[in-house]
């Protein structure tokens, strides 16, 4: 906030710069959101540069360079979308929702298999994962539908309606990727909470969820009809019983935990053998937080967590600042999505959550996720800009 006030102040004096700043919309952006997002991108690039050096033979900075490129594209996309009044997305809700479901479904048609689940489309120069962008699309469309339904029907009917609209794409994604579908579910819940769905209804949903999880993970396998494949089941439950069998999911998770723990207060720097020698699995994507924790210790890991906390807080703040209720719901959905992903991913890295394949927003290597997250940041900025425009309006006119 300080910075944006400052920008406005200086803008009056140096009109040439004002033009550019105004054109980019920086003046009305939330500086803390931009700071935390860019800070996390920098953390990601530093970590990738130092930790995954030489991971791909012949191209030592492969991950770093590509992530930097994706980051650049993401920042541009963030600016672009922040210029758009997010409220227009409400009008496009049906189209967005259709595109969301269609794109996820398209993965079945054109997708290719990657690690046991198909979740991406092969485009020239880029492998696009529709589900990553889908997180934002779900937020924008579901928030719109919630506004539509706001005063119609009974409370129970509305709850069911929201739930159905949220769960349809969630179910579609579940067919490909458990982690992403969990994020979809979290977004749905967050928006429902923000929309004012009755606590009793939310409690009932929570109870149903608990029963569902117990059935899938415990009852069905016991009854001899497992729902999940063996390796999926193993991944979900192994954090409860760390294994020493190499090749087990539990072994990998335990190695990530050892890596994080061995970082101590200040980190091991280049002595970070757990990540350097490959004991930490997926060290540039799902387990990048363990790499940060090992290399930079509690200091580094806490910095990353703090940046996320800052981002989360500023997103929540937008819920109250928003010029309309749609903005409140969108901010809630985005805040919920980020919070959920951070908790599940970091929890997985620290050995208190199961392995679900959820990447760490802005940190994990991956173009689709990074650009999609920057788009979310852009939408948050749009909410901020619009809220200020609303307040500024009378003074200007």
């Amino acid at each position: 906030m300080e910075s944006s006030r400052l920008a406005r102040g200086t803008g009056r004096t140096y009109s040439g710069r004002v033009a550019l700043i105004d054109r980019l919309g920086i003046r009305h952006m939330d500086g803390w959101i931009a700071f935390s997002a860019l800070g996390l991108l920098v953390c990601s690039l530093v970590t990738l540069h130092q930790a995954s050096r030489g991971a791909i033979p012949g191209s030592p900075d492969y991950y770093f360079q590509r992530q930097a490129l994706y980051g650049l594209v993401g920042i541009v996309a963030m600016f672009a979308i922040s210029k758009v009044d997010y409220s227009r997305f409400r009008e496009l809700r049906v189209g967005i929702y259709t595109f969301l479901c269609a794109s996820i479904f398209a993965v079945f048609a054109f997708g290719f298999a990657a690690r046991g689940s198909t979740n991406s489309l092969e485009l020239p120069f880029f492998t696009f994962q529709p589900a990553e962008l889908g997180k934002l699309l779900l937020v924008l469309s579901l928030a719109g539908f919630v506004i539509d339904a706001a005063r119609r029907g009974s409370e129970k009917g509305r709850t069911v309606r929201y739930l159905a609209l949220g769960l349809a794409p969630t179910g579609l994604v579940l067919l490909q990727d458990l982690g992403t579908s969990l994020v979809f579910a979290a977004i749905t819940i967050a928006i429902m909470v923000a929309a004012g769905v009755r606590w009793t209804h939310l409690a009932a949903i929570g109870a149903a969820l608990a029963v569902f999880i117990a059935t899938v993970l415990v009852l069905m396998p016991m009854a001899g009809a497992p729902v999940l494949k063996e390796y999926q089941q193993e991944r979900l439950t192994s954090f409860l019983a760390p294994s020493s069998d190499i090749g087990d999911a539990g072994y990998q998770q335990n190695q990530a935990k050892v890596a994080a723990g061995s970082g101590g207060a200040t980190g091991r720097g280049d002595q970070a053998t757990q990540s350097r020698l490959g004991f930490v699995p997926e060290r540039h994507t799902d387990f990048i937080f363990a790499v940060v924790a090992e290399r930079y210790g509690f200091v580094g890991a806490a910095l990353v967590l703090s940046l996320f906390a800052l981002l989360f807080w500023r997103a929540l703040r937008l819920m109250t600042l928003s010029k309309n209720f749609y903005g409140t719901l969108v901010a809630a959905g985005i805040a919920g999505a980020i919070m959920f992903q951070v908790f599940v991913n970091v929890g997985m890295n620290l050995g208190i959550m199961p392995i679900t394949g959820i990447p760490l927003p802005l940190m994990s290597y991956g173009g689709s996720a990074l650009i999609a997250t920057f788009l979310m940041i852009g939408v948050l900025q749009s909410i901020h800009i619009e809220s200020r425009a609303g307040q500024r309006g009378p003074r200007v006119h």
Partner: protein
Amino acid sequence: MKYQPVVPKTKSRSGTALRVAIIGGIGLVLFGVLFFRLWSLQVVTGERYLAEANDNRTREVRVLAPRGRILDRKGNVLVDNRMSMALQLDPIEIPTRVNARRRIFGSVADFMDRKVVWVRRRFRDEIKHNPPGSPVTLARDVADDLVYYLQEHQADFPEIQVNRVFVRRYPEGFTAAHLLGSVGAVTADDLSETDLPDLQGGDNLGKAGIEQTYDSTLRGTAGTTRVQVDSTGSAKGQLASETPVPGKSLRLTLNPKVQAAGEAALSSIGLPGGFVAMDVNNGEVLGLGSAPSFDPDQFTRPLSQTQVDALYNEDLDAPLFNRAISGAYPVGSIFKPLTAVAALDAGAITPNEVVQDAGKIEIADQVFTNAGEQSHGPVNLQRALEVSSDVYFYLLGAELNGTDKLQQWSSRFGIGRYTGIDLPGESKGLLPTPAWRNELFAEGGTDRGWVIGDNIQLAIGQGDLQADPLQMAVAYAALGNGGDVVKPRMVLQVEDAAGRVLEETAPEVMRQIPIDPARRQVIMDGLNDAAQAPEGTSYGVFGGFPIPVAGKTGTAERPPNGDQAWYAVLAPYPDPEVVVVTTVERGGFGAETAAPIALQILSAYFGKQAKAVSDGSGSIE
């Protein structure tokens, strides 16, 4: 609010604020959990995880030391090492779950081109005896192409290792197989029985013969290499290492010519038997062997049960059995010089006292006969030894009964006692005494107590007496050197890998026995006559030998087996330096089978051949 939202809110501002507070509260709790977890993991228990991480990246690899070589007296290599590529499974990498294990055995079987059942059985058999954690060897001498294939595809078979191991090599084939013994992987029992601190699973241990007795000398000290490994276990770099210390070499007392001659002569007979050739003054064993023999190399590979059975099979004369030091037999007439020493010392007879040998004699209502009831007429001690008069010695046995002199002197000579040779598995034999027999009778172990007949039988090396060739060699050596009971030994010196002498073994005398030189001379004269006087029992064999010798034949009844043939000889007469004792199971008369072997050995020792002699009247025993 001047500007209303586009859509009227369903809830008041305060309602939204509550919702924001709830979501914020949940977020606060979740972040709190993460921060707390991060704190406890890194700051509180960080040291532990750091240790675990350091442990993770280094692996200690034991580098086995090459075992010392075994040489004969002249430096010919009897045992050394060769490198072999052994295909091993690391049991730690083998999961316990049935399905996972089956999958791994399947891939190992594919790799080795074997059946899964074979892999599973070998793994089970090996792990049964192995100390926990030691590698399971599935095959030795793996072909090179398989090794290269594995090196290229190691990632596909993380549980299979091909390790260089040292395997014993026997350049001289069967030579001295019984002495050298064998080497085998340490078993769990070995580790619990022996108290060897630096021994670990996967190491080798001497299991028999010299390899066993001198295991600590030969074994050396294994080194360790600490390597940095990545998560797949591939080495990324070497850290500190301790180089292995190779085992020391042993130079045996074995005279290669003597050993070769003994083994050749014994095996030419085609019957089970044994021989010992020893320096009478210092106990150095110049040759020692047993027939039938075996190929020591077969112990370098995993043995099938059939092969093991064959080595112990009595019907195949148990090739593994070392008759020279473990074959306890009645010794027959080669015992007579010991009886003579005892009788002279007891005053039961004087050297020149003449006894009428009528071919048989009746003592205590029992008739004792010479072999074939042959009569030798009047005999004194020298003559009695020359013609091997049983009647003469029957009388001595009868007279010495009740005095304990015969037993006392026999024991002094080492009958019924361990010689102390540096080989495992030595037999003690049996020296029959009245006390022993009476006690056995009291316990119901036999049908009668001690009678005079027992002493009479002992006097000619029959009855309950049991001794092995080595014991007789030690006894004859004492006679030959004037009363020193030497401790036989196999090792001349300990050398390092370059052949520098590290340690020489010193001769040891177990005890000295007071043999009167004049009386000893009479006995030596009698034995010389027995070997080389025309009427001597082995004149036919030694009559034409250019070196004067003092030798005695023995033919022991050993029901239900055929007669045991014996020969014991000291050379050169009258001041011997070497003693040779040979025995052949079911060999009949000593002069027929045992004496010719002794002649071959002495020929090799002195480098002199015997001239053929027209057979004298040489009496049978």
